[in-house]
């Protein structure tokens, strides 16, 4: 698949927009998940993921084809999301309310669709709680936890995405893991 992507990149650089549509289609879920798991808001995640692809497109000539396209794309998405997180800090408590509303909307939506067995409702509550605790991590720990355990990137890939040494990735994962251990030990 890596070779197919390389071929698509060459076509995009020559001005083929249809080739870019294939690239977007291929990576959309991965990029959207990175943004959503780090920002916690579906609408913002969609905006950020969209912006990441547009930036990749407008800067495609700067992409070094000797490197892995996904790393470059994930870096754009991660950096955009971290920037957004930092800008919205003053509104944190309002966002907390919005997040609560989102949770309620989730349940309302599910209630409209069908009644869930008790176990599934509990599972949904648990996942929401876990996601909240991930979102409470400082961005530098949140990003490595999301990339490692939700997007399942290797330590080396994460180092390349974030442009930090592998040792730093490990240190941040360890601290993120310890923080989450304390938060999640009783659930």
């Amino acid at each position, binding site marked *: 698949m890596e070779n197919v992507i390389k071929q698509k990149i060459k076509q995009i650089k020559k001005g083929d*927009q249809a080739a870019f549509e294939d690239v*977007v289609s291929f990576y959309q879920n991965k990029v*959207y*998940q990175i943004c959503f798991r780090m920002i916690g808001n579906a609408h913002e995640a*969609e905006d950020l993921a969209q912006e990441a692809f547009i930036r990749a497109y407008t800067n495609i000539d700067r992409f070094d084809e000797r490197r892995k396209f996904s790393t470059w794309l994930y870096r754009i998405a991660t950096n955009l999301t971290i920037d957004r997180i930092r800008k919205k800090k003053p509104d944190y408590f309002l966002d907390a309310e919005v997040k609560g509303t989102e949770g309620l909307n989730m349940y309302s939506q599910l209630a409209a669709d069908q009644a869930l067995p008790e176990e599934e409702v509990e599972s949904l509550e648990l996942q929401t709680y876990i996601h909240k605790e991930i979102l409470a991590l400082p961005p530098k720990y949140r990003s490595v936890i999301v990339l490692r355990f939700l997007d399942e990137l290797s330590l080396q890939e994460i180092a390349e995405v974030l442009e930090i040494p592998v040792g730093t990735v490990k240190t941040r994962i360890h601290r993120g893991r310890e923080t*989450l251990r304390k938060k*999640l030990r009783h659930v």
Partner: protein
Amino acid sequence: MNCKQEVIALMHKYLDDDLTQPEEKKLRFHLQSCSDCQAHFHELKRTISLVKSSSPISAPGDFTANVMSNLPQQKKRNHYMR
């Protein structure tokens, strides 16, 4: 206390798939006799299982179409490159 810090570091290396064989022996040996560290290790492993249990999230159905419709206008590119 310092001993515990060292063991906890080994736990994280284990979870990173980074332990050497002597380190693994050391960790296992310590866990056999220290219930506090056993509990700590169990909590760490469970934490990661919980995080990983989150369902994958998919992009909205019209995501690709929206990206394409928001791309900047296509500029003519020079097809003759040296």
